[in-house]
């Protein structure tokens, strides 16, 4: 009988680059930057790492495929390395691989490293990079990331009878909140506060989403070193324990069948249920102290609050208006600034989110430090609301 991974594995070191339009840095520069900080934080030596999981979503525009680039860049000495890719959950998949490697008993100490270099394409938004196969352009729509999520905003507004003005106001408050947090974070890409009015009046990217409803497009890398819980005291006094890591993937019924309401993300809901069960969480609204969720677009954060059961269905607006998710609210969300301010170098994002949870639980989050958080959650959603991969990771002391 499977018993899950709760408290079997601990995170003992993490690193995260400055995110941004890193026109100064090669992909390898970013990987080394994250790794050097991570290794120093763990206090280990490179030879202690027994296996590694490497996450990059679009290697065809940066470093190429396979695992060799991690080994040759970091000079890892012939250890097992696996490259993983699972849309925007790629960074969390790398962590899951490393955690499972330790939890299985195969290894004592593993590395997870994610990186993405998006800004070598010459244009804004996520690169196309042929990522959907040869057939996609032949029988699908002219879909972009903001367009795919804008359709969920349209449907959410329609389902809950929000006129465009009220709907955009709800979303604008989400972005303004994240910008306020990001302004305090030296590693964030976007570090300016914006007002709700600025967000609402920004140029439309994909109706109803405007410029400030969209996360930045950035380069970055982040890394984690994990070890077995039984040996963690050898390494540091303040480890962070993994309570659960779960993934849920669309079954096709959202896109192909007509029951899905278009105003929520079913795999987010399912991954949340699985993760809460594994972590032993009964009431997520009360028990999860803080979360970094996949706010690729403001609407994604809004529906994720409902999918993860932080807010009741159709009621997230009430919680937003009440300031529940602000830094000084009952359940701070995107305390580091989120994808909104960090941008979304895909392979790195899941690990970047975990970096903030790790620092907050250790009490090392500087100006952003929350008061005694107990449980942190990270959530990635990759693909489109109609067809996606969702990861939920829960960590605690």
């Amino acid at each position, binding site marked *: 009988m499977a018993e899950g991974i709760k408290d079997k594995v601990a995170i003992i070191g993490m690193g995260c680059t400055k995110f941004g339009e890193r026109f100064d840095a090669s992909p390898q520069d970013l990987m080394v930057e994250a790794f050097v900080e991570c290794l120093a934080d763990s206090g280990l030596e490179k030879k202690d790492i027994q296996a590694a999981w490497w996450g990059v979503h679009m290697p065809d525009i940066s470093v190429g495929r396979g695992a060799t680039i991690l080994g040759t860049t970091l000079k890892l000495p012939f250890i097992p390395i696996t490259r993983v890719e699972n849309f925007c959950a790629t960074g969390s998949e790398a962590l899951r691989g490393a955690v499972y490697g330790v939890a299985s008993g195969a290894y004592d100490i593993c590395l997870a490293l994610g990186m993405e270099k998006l800004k070598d*394409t*010459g*244009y*804004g*938004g996520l*690169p*196309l*990079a*042929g990522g959907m196969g*040869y*057939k996609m*352009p*032949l*029988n*699908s*729509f*002219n*879909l*972009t*990331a*903001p*367009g795919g999520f*804008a*359709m*969920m905003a*349209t*449907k959410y507004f*329609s389902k809950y009878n929000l006129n465009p003005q009220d709907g955009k106001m709800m979303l604008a408050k989400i972005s303004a909140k994240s910008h306020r947090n990001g302004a305090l974070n030296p590693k964030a890409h976007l570090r300016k506060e914006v007002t709700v009015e600025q967000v609402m009046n920004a*140029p*439309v*990217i*994909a*109706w*109803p*989403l405007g410029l400030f409803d969209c996360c930045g497009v950035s380069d970055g890398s982040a890394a984690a070193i994990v070890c077995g819980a039984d040996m963690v005291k050898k390494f540091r006094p303040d480890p962070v324990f993994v309570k659960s890591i779960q993934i849920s993937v669309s*079954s*096709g*019924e959202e*896109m*192909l*069948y*007509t029951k899905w309401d*278009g105003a929520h993300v079913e795999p987010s809901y399912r991954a949340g249920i699985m993760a809460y069960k594994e972590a032993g969480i009964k009431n997520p609204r009360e028990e999860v102290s803080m979360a970094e969720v996949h706010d690729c677009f403001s609407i994604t954060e809004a529906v994720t609050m409902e999918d993860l059961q932080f807010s009741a269905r159709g009621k997230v607006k009430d919680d937003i208006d009440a300031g529940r998710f602000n830094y000084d609210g009952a359940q701070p969300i995107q305390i580091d600034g989120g994808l909104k301010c960090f941008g979304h170098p895909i392979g790195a994002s899941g690990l970047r989110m975990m970096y903030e949870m790790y620092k907050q639980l250790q009490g090392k989050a500087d100006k952003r430090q929350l008061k005694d958080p107990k449980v942190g959650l990270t959530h990635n959603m990759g693909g489109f609301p*109609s067809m996606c991969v969702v990861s939920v990771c829960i960590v605690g002391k």
Partner: protein
Amino acid sequence: MVGIKSYGAHIPRFRLDRNIMQMALLFLGFAPLRGEKAVANWDEDSITMAVAAAKDCLRGEDSGKVDGCYFATTSQTYSLRQNAGIIAAALDLNTNCRTADFTDSTKSGTAALLAAADAVSSGSLNNCLISAADCRVSKVGSNGDYTYGDGGAAFLLGKDDVVATIDGSYCTTHDFVDRRRLEGERLEHMWEERFIRDAGYMKFIPEAAAGLVKKYNLTAKDFSKVIYACAFTGAHAALGKTLGLAPEQVQEPMLTTVGDTGVAQTLMMLVAALEDAKPGDKIMVISFGQGCDAMYLTVTDKIAMIKDKKAIKRNLANKVALGSYEKYLAFRKLMPCEIGIRGEETIFTSFSIISRESREIYGMVGTKCKKCGTPSWPVQRICPNPDCGAVDQMEAYKFSDKLGDIFTYTSDFLAPSIDPPASYGFIDFKGGGRAGLDFTDCDPNTIKVGMPVELAFRIKAADEKRAAINYGWKAMPIVA
């Protein structure tokens, strides 16, 4: 007796006011014609306009019985790859279907019609679909630039239940060079307008008309409507007098509302005439190219059965001002435009995928579960209904003729497009099934969740590196 069982037409939604052209082009000279011309949307070409006309024509007909598909154009998309084959695939016609392209002359539309009539008459085909469409481009400021309009027409020919019998024809051929274009050239060359008018239309149209009435022992007075091609408004009116016709016998040529639609001109006029025809009416049609095809038809009492087919009237009323000559140049790729570096990322067109999955990609044919009745697009092997999940219990299910409602949508400025924003969304179909589709012929400001749509076969994207124009079905708000 062989005749027309059904008809359809398509006029694109955009109109370009020739005064706007004149303002942009005054430095080159004066406009030869006033009024407006119909302009194909950026995602239309002769193939898509033929499909639109043919879809209208086949509405209510059994397309499974169509055994011939002829297409006429002088603005063929492919010069090697049968255009009629693409039309047959879009309409999901049977594979045991005779297909042919008729091209190179503006009289090719009537040539296709007469060839289809002969095939049906001889018994070698039972139900032959013919479509004709042109989307011609001409040098900036040229006569053609001003006068040409875009459009298409389609007819289903058969022997039973015909709404008009095709009773006779008289054809002439002259190697008369009004317009010409060599293989590999995009823009055509035109000879002197006065020559084309006086030594062409004014000479050959009367010759063909006289030949036809003499051959069948008829007179001009026998015809309710006479349809004849002519690209000049003045000459068109003069020809009516030459032919001895009263004004009400002359079918209006739509030169100032649609323009000269090349191969489709006389056939679109024939559709317009049939929309208003009464049983017993005789209609003469004379096309013009390198000589003329003249024919005459007699309307039967079955015309009352398809009185809901009014594509010309409906499309003449359904118009949106393009408002800009520059936009027209951009749509026809006569002017290089910046659509962003994102737009330079070329899709790779795999013709093995297109060939293998043509019914799905071009025909918009998905699957329907025989166990629970759930329709799906694209094609599925395993039923997506979570309460069913049947494996390999699917039958083919055509979505292209289904209506639907907008489930959700966006209008996207990031997506590369020559006419941003690109609108698209999910459609829930009447009868079941959901598909994510691009939208076309819609105003981004008026789209609403729940808005009813129909499907239109359009260009999705050009992959010029691989000599590919990729087509697919898009959602379009229904025009009442």
